[in-house]
């Protein structure tokens, strides 16, 4: 890995830059999360009513509504809880990155919720904002600057 010197505000020069996850890693983690949600959301939306139908006839309306509400809330809850709890979604775990405050503190619940809400409501802005990773000294995207977060690599566990 080659450390690249950066310029501009918030500059981190030299090897310290490699602590932060870059564009490819973050896109890859995002794709993994999107695939997981693409699988989980239909299951949550349709699964309970399908099971009900198989066991006891036509599903009641309240079950359909509840299932669809749960499916709609699932992505928001997923990102919020993951960032608030461990700082890692499933994609982040796979690629060994974690969302933190600049002082390496955990994100609070409200900050995690807002970060997830903005990302889900404005996905285009979110994606375009990720271009800032290429020019920021700490590889921060637009939403990272907005919510005061960084995405760092977890040190690899030494093997025997």
């Amino acid at each position, binding site marked *: *890995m*080659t*450390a*690249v010197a950066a310029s501009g505000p918030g500059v981190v020069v030299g090897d310290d830059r*490699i602590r932060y*996850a*870059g*564009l*490819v*890693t973050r896109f*890859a983690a995002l794709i993994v999360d999107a695939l997981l949600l693409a699988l989980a959301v239909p299951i949550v939306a349709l699964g309970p009513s399908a099971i009900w139908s198989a066991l006891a006839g036509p599903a009641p309306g309240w079950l359909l509504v509840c299932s669809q509400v749960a499916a709609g809330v699932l992505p928001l809850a997923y990102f919020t809880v993951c960032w608030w709890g461990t700082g890692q979604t499933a994609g982040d775990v*796979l*690629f*060994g990155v974690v969302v933190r405050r600049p002082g390496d503190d955990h994100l609070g619940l409200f900050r995690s919720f807002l970060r997830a809400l903005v990302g889900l409501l404005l996905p285009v802005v979110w994606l375009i904002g990720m271009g800032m990773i*290429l*020019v920021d000294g700490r*590889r921060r995207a637009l939403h990272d600057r907005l919510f005061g977060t960084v995405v760092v*690599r977890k040190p*690899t*566990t030494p*093997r025997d």
Partner: protein
Amino acid sequence: MPDSPQTGRRSVGSLFLGVAALAGQRLHLMGDQQNPTAALVVGLMSDGKDKVVDLGKGAYRSVPVDKVRNAVSDAVTHARARGQDAIASSKADASQWLSSTASAPKKWAETKAIPQVMDDMTPYMTDEFMPKMIDAMMPHIRETVVPAVIDDLTTDPRVRKMIAEQSHGAVSAAADELRQVTASADDQVESAFRRTFTRHQPS
């Protein structure tokens, strides 16, 4: 004669003599009256015995008992020590002789006989005996031994732990490889971006 009927003490000799007299009367070899010749012989033997006893007692009194006892004790001690030495040396000699006698056949067996037997047996063992034995044993091994071994392995917590560790290690290694690849890709993308967008800037 000490064996009078009044005292009640009877010697073996008097009893033997009495039994012989009774047997003679029963067999009509002797009458009810005592035979004077027999009585003479018995009397001479009794007198002779008393004389011998008296001579022995006199000789015993005249001998210095302590000296004799010490001499006998010394002789016994000396003889015992000498006997022990003789037994020990005999054992050592016999052991040495046996080992020297047995070493030659042993060496011959080790260098000549056993290698020859092994060389002769090996083709037979490998070509005939072992294949037959394996063919005979394989059904039994397949039916009983292999399932038991598999059961032991699958239920052994050490084997399970080893498999889990190896699986975890393989997954961990793959994840580390993936992370290194993406990290390298991060750097390459950034380098390409910087080369592209800083090329035309004045230095």
